[in-house]
Each structure stands twice: as structure tokens, then as C-alpha cells.
């Protein structure tokens, strides 16, 4: 505040000096009186005093009426500028803080995204491995079943063939024995079988 008052006072002095100088120069031109040396710089005393009184009156009026209002405006303006600067500083700090937060969040999001992708890849690999293993097991089971079925069919066919061959052999043998043996030969067989037959207690 003091600084501002000093500034205003300096300005007033300069203004007063200018006012005092200007009428003197005018009067010098109008009077046509030749003045020499230092006289050219200072007005005559009769003119200086009214001017000084006018100046003082003007200064007092300005000091009472205009300066407080002017200084208040300046103070308000300074306060506003200060507030603005503070707000700007706060906003800057807030922006920097937010920027830092965003950077951290973006970094976290990037890390999370990378983790998600890694997990997804891992799960996909796991699922792929499971599907492959399942398909392989199923394929092996199908092949095994097919092999067993083929083996069973093969055994059945062989058994049927063996049975057919045996049946044919026995049928021929029965026909030969049944038709070719005489009663005497039958009795001979019976006699031999009785001799060879075991006891009832063995059965």
C-alpha cells in the first residue's frame, strides 16, 4: 500500500511540475518580455502562489475523493490478480497432480491389460491343451474299441469256422461208424468199452 502511495505522490509531483512549467512558458510567449538565464526556468512569484494554491486544492480534492477510490480499485485489481495467480497456481498443481494420477492410472491400466492378455493367453493355451488331450483320448478309445470289435469278430469267425470244420468231421465220422459197423462189431466195441469203463464211484 505504501509503495502505491509513494508512486502516486511521485506522479503528482511530476504532474504539478509540468503544470507549473506550462503557464510560465505561455506567459513568456505572450508577454514578449525577454528573460534570460535561470529566470526562464521559474515563473514569477505572483503567478506561482495561485498556481500552488490551486494545485494544493486540486491535490486535496484528488486525495480525498479520487485517490481512495483509485487505490481501492488498484487493490481490488491486485487482489484479483493475486487470487487469479493463486488459483492458476492451484490449478497448475492440481493439473500436475491429476496428470501424475492419470499417469499412474494409465500405467496400472496398461499393467492390468497386459495381465489380462497374459491370463487370456494362458487360459487359451490350457483350453487348447485340454481339448487336444480330450480329442486324443477319444480317438484312442475309438481306435481301441474298433480293434476290440475287429478282434472279437475275428475270434467269432475263427470259432465258427472251427466249429463248422469240427461238425463236418464228426458228421462224416458218425456216418461212417453208424453205417459201416456190423452188429458183431458193435458188440465187440461194447465189450471193450465195458472192460475199459471206469466205476460208478468215479462219476
Amino acid at each position, binding site marked *: 500500500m505504501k509503495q502505491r502511495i509513494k508512486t502516486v505522490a511521485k506522479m503528482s509531483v511530476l504532474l504539478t511540475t509540468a503544470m507549473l512549467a506550462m503557464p510560465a512558458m505561455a506567459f513568456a510567449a505572450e508577454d514578449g518580455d525577454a528573460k534570460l538565464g535561470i529566470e526562464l526556468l521559474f515563473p514569477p512569484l505572483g503567478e506561482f502562489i495561485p498556481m500552488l494554491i490551486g494545485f494544493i486544492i486540486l491535490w486535496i480534492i484528488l486525495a480525498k475523493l479520487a485517490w481512495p477510490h483509485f487505490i481501492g480499485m488498484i487493490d481490488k485489481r491486485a487482489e484479483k490478480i493475486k487470487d487469479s495467480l493463486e488459483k492458476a497456481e492451484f490449478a497448475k498443481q492440481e493439473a500436475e497432480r491429476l496428470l501424475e494420477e492419470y499417469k499412474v492410472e494409465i500405467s496400472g491400466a496398461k499393467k492390468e491389460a497386459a495381465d489380462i492378455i497374459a491370463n487370456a493367453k494362458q487360459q487359451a493355451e490350457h483350453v487348447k491343451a485340454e481339448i487336444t488331450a480330450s480329442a486324443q483320448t477319444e480317438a484312442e478309445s475309438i481306435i481301441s474299441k474298433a480293434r476290440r470289435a475287429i478282434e472279437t469278430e475275428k475270434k467269432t469267425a475263427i470259432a465258427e469256422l472251427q466249429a463248422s*470244420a469240427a461238425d463236418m468231421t464228426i458228421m462224416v465220422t458218425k456216418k461212417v461208424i453208424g453205417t459201416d459197423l456190423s452188429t458183431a462189431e458193435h458188440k465187440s466195441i461194447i465189450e471193450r468199452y465195458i472192460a475199459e469203463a471206469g466205476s460208478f464211484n468215479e462219476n
Partner: protein
Amino acid sequence: MKTNSANNRAKATVYAEVLLAAARVKNNVFAVANEFDLLTKTVRGSIELRKTLVDKTVPATAKRAIITEIFAGYASELLETFIVMVDRGDLAVLPRANELYTTLAEKALGAAFVDVTTVVPLDEALREQIISKYSAELGCGVMLREHVDSDLIGGIILSTHGKRIDASVSSQLERARHVLSKTF
């Protein structure tokens, strides 16, 4: 109170004992045993005959006529006993009565009945061979109940008291067929 099974056993015992008494009077115990066995097998083997004999709509006289027709030549005491059995509706006890009669007859005769099945009828030499061999084994006299069956092809089958000796060609061929079917 007797159960149905015990009741049937009692009835079978009565029929067997009555038949044995009648057969002993005629000194025909063994022949009746053979014929009783054949009669039982014939009835068991014919569903139509069994149905007819148990059919209550068929008159008793008709049943008698059927029995005497089918089993003509069988001992009269056997046929009379069987007719009574049919008239009283006791056909179900026939197999049991046959078994009991066989047991009672064996005791009465002091001999074991041996069923002998061959393709051709036995001659005396074969009968003697069988009787001498199995009398020694069974420790009692042996009476042969002879059967002829061409399905045997050859050889002999002997059986008594639920025991069986199968020395038939058909059985040997069957065993051979079984072995061949496994080893071909």
C-alpha cells in the same frame, strides 16, 4: 398240517408200496420196475398224453382206454395202479412213485438196478460181463434194465442211483468235436 410236497411224497409212497405188494404176489417185481420206468418216461415225454390224462372233461373210461391202448402188454398191476393214480388226479406223483418203487424193489430183490443203453441188444455174454463187473463194484446183485438207442452210434451207457458211466461213441465224438473246434 402237511405241505403239498409232503402230501405228494406220502401219496407216492402209498402207490409204490401197493404196486410192490401186487408185483411180489405175481413174482414180477423186476419186470414191473422196468415197465414202470418206461411208462414214466413215456408220460414225461408226451405233453399231449399228460394233458389228456389230467383233463377233467375227458371221461375216466376214455382215459382207461387210452392207457391200456398205449401201454398194452405191460403188467396188469402196474396199469391198474396207474389208472387209479390218473383217476384220483395224482399224475404229478408219478416220477416220485417210480423212484420209490425202484428203491423198494431193489431192497426186495437185494439187487441194484442198472440201466444199460446200447445201439444193439445185449447178448448173454455182455450181460454176464456187465453184471459180474458191477456186482463186485456195488457189493450186491445187479439187475440190468436194457434199452436200445441208435443215437449212441456205438458203445454203452450205464446208470444207477443217479450215477452214470457214458462210454458211448456219440459222447466220445462230441468230446472230439469240442476239442477239434478249439484246436483247429
